[in-house]
């Protein structure tokens, strides 16, 4: 096969993963920022822009299929990489949906004053996005060591989530009229918590590409209500 042609293809697939990561990152930052500032115009924009991420994912999936079909024989590490790119693009697309979900929450809360200042949710976002950025870099650079250590940070996000959860429960108990908004905020926090979990999946793929080992990376998973699955998926 023309090795050069395949290398060019793989490079371009990875460039697209990088682009998708940046789109997801910006969407998430903007969504949390809109929620914090209760900026409904910005929220609507983020909500609509999610279709860009979805389109990118379809294009990337199609590119992967073209690569598999036209670059035969594609084997061993190359095949693992393309298969993992498909998986990672799916994870990123889902993360885009979480950002869209936060924008939706912002629209649902509307201009009603926030029941608490948003501090922990932006912190959850910062840690999650830092994990995401490092995970995608590890995936692109075949950095197994980084990929193994990044999921260790998941507990930071889980801790913050538990904190937000307890705080919101307390507020709801004290003042039942806040239940509606408190629920929405819990949902926003949960989206970020799920996002961090998906980062772990990207790390697993990064390890798989290099080692061929397909197994779950150990991570702390002790959010208080781990049985609750707001989005119906893992």
């Amino acid at each position, binding site marked *: *096969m*023309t*090795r*050069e*042609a395949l290398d060019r293809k793989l490079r371009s697939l990875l460039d697209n993963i990088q682009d998708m990561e940046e789109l997801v990152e910006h969407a998430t930052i903007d969504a949390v920022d809109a929620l914090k500032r209760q900026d409904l115009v910005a929220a609507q924009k983020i909500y609509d822009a999610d279709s860009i991420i979805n389109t990118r994912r379809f294009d990337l999936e199609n590119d992967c*299929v*073209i690569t598999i*079909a*036209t*670059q*035969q*024989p594609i084997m061993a590490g190359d095949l693992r990489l393309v298969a993992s790119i498909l998986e990672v693009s799916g994870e990123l697309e889902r993360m885009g949906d979480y950002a869209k979900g936060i924008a939706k929450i912002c629209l649902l809360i509307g201009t009603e004053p926030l029941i608490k200042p948003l501090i922990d949710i932006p912190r959850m976002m910062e840690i999650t996005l830092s994990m995401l950025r490092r995970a995608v870099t590890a995936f692109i650079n075949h950095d197994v060591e980084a990929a193994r250590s990044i999921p260790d940070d998941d507990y930071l996000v889980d801790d913050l989530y538990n904190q937000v959860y307890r705080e919101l429960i307390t507020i709801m108990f004290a003042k039942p009229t806040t239940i509606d908004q408190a629920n929405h905020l819990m949902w926003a926090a949960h989206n970020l918590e799920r996002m961090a979990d998906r980062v772990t999946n990207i790390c697993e793929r990064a390890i798989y590409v290099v080692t061929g080992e397909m197994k779950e990376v150990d991570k702390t998973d002790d959010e208080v209500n781990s049985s609750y699955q707001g989005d119906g998926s893992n």
Partner: protein
Amino acid sequence: MNKFILENLSLTYSDSVQALKGINLEIPANSITVLFGPAGGGKSSLLRTLNRLNDLADVKQVAGRADLLDQDGRTLNLLDKTIDVIALRRRLSMVFARPIVLPLSIRQNLTYGLEVSGVRDRRRLNQAIELSLEQAALWDEVKDRLDDPATMLSGGQQQRLCLARCLALEPEVIILDEPTSGLDPISTNKVEASLQKLKVNYTIILVPHSIQQAARMADQAAFFLQGELIEFATGDTLFINPKQVKTKDYVEGRFG
């Protein structure tokens, strides 16, 4: 820009086998066009019609149109009995499945064609040797032994020498009939890589020896079955989403 325009091209051998049945095909310049399909599909008959090797075969009838276009848009009717076939074959060089080197030195294999056509200038000949060997990804392996017999080279090297011999004459079109069927994967890789580079300056028509090679190499691909052109499309389309059931069945390995 198109290099070849074929219209309703049909060819019947004297044993009444119709090898080509009303082929309509436009082959673009500066890209790789792959002709593929099971044996007896008409691929080789088509190639041999283009460079008139079929003049030597027992052909009963050729009908339709087959035109070769040059950069200035001039058209040459390839079916015209009176055209200068030698001049035509300088424009359309061919590499065959089995490397056929001349029983001469590596150097002479490359200069033979040029010398026959009247080039005597040493410097020009040397330039042609180096350039053509580099284009065929062979220069580094043979530069220190250009005067060794060409038959000493390995099969893969001989095939690349045949490609270099084509290129030394600076043709417009390179026709390759299963050029890597007898080569190991590394030599195949080298030939394929040089073809990908050469397509910038040449029109390449390739009959691959496997569907995998067809898929790897095709800018556009034509699927031939029993003398008919079943489907012609870009490689990306044809190997992922073919429109014809016969093409789909063949690329999926259901027959052939």
